[in-house]
């Protein structure tokens, strides 16, 4: 169902919008590049997840040692592991 029959104003709008630029040719290449990068990141996830779990377990074990109780557990996780956490949240 069309809102209204096509009229002069509608034709003018359509003709004007038709003069807007189409999608740039580089867009597909960039899209493919981003798609490949994401696919690679996701394919690495299981290995990274296993590493994170191992390191987190190690950090928690360290936290159980006397004298470490005052430290926040997240501080015990190495920064390069914490850097991966946003990637996990987005998948």
């Amino acid at each position, binding site marked *: *169902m*069309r*809102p*209204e029959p096509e009229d*002069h*104003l*509608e034709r*003018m*709008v*359509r*003709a*004007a*919008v*038709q*003069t*807007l*630029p*189409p*999608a*740039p040719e580089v*867009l*597909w290449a*960039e*899209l493919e590049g*981003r*798609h490949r990068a*994401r696919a690679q990141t996701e394919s690495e996830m299981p290995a990274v997840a296993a590493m994170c779990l191992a390191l987190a377990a190690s950090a928690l074990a360290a936290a159980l040692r006397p004298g470490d109780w005052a430290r926040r557990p997240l501080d015990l996780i190495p920064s390069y592991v914490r850097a991966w956490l946003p990637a996990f949240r987005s998948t």
Partner: protein
Amino acid sequence: MSVRPTTTTDGALPNAMDQGPRGAPGDARLVALVAAADREAFRLLYERYADRLFRYAVLRLGDAAAAEDAVQETFLAVWKDAAAYEGRSSVSTWLFGIAHHKVNAVVRGRARETPLAGEALAGDEPGPDREEPSDERLRVLAAIRSLTEEHREVLFLAYYQGLGVREAAAVCGIPEGTVKSRLHHARRMLAERLGEGEPT
């Protein structure tokens, strides 16, 4: 892969017999193939819709670079979530619905709305699907540019993309009455600025 018949509940006909141009797969068939990680189907779907989605994003955002980002995000979402398409609306409505949200995310991220930039309208070289902007068409574009972003959106969806009220409402996530109201006001403002007679 077998694909269900492509009837939709929003009254749109996605593609008769789900056939694309010159016997190519129809839109719904392409989306089903994309859901099965078919990269060629993904490319075909991109070729079929990229220009329209880009113009939609440019018209709303007034910024070609931001429009490119929005279109990329739209297609990345399509690749990731194609299986979520259930055929309840046309593929066109579904795609513009995704693009609507991606453009909204850009709009929300801005401190203020960027005016529709002249360079985004001028573009570079005329492509095969682009007509030369005459003085009259530039005047119409300037009038469209002076409208609010919401009014530009409904004008594009109704008059360029050819969506009906129900489909446009589904894309924007607003009631059908709001689409009609926005279209009515957009027409009136446009007619005023172009000096065209518009019955009130």
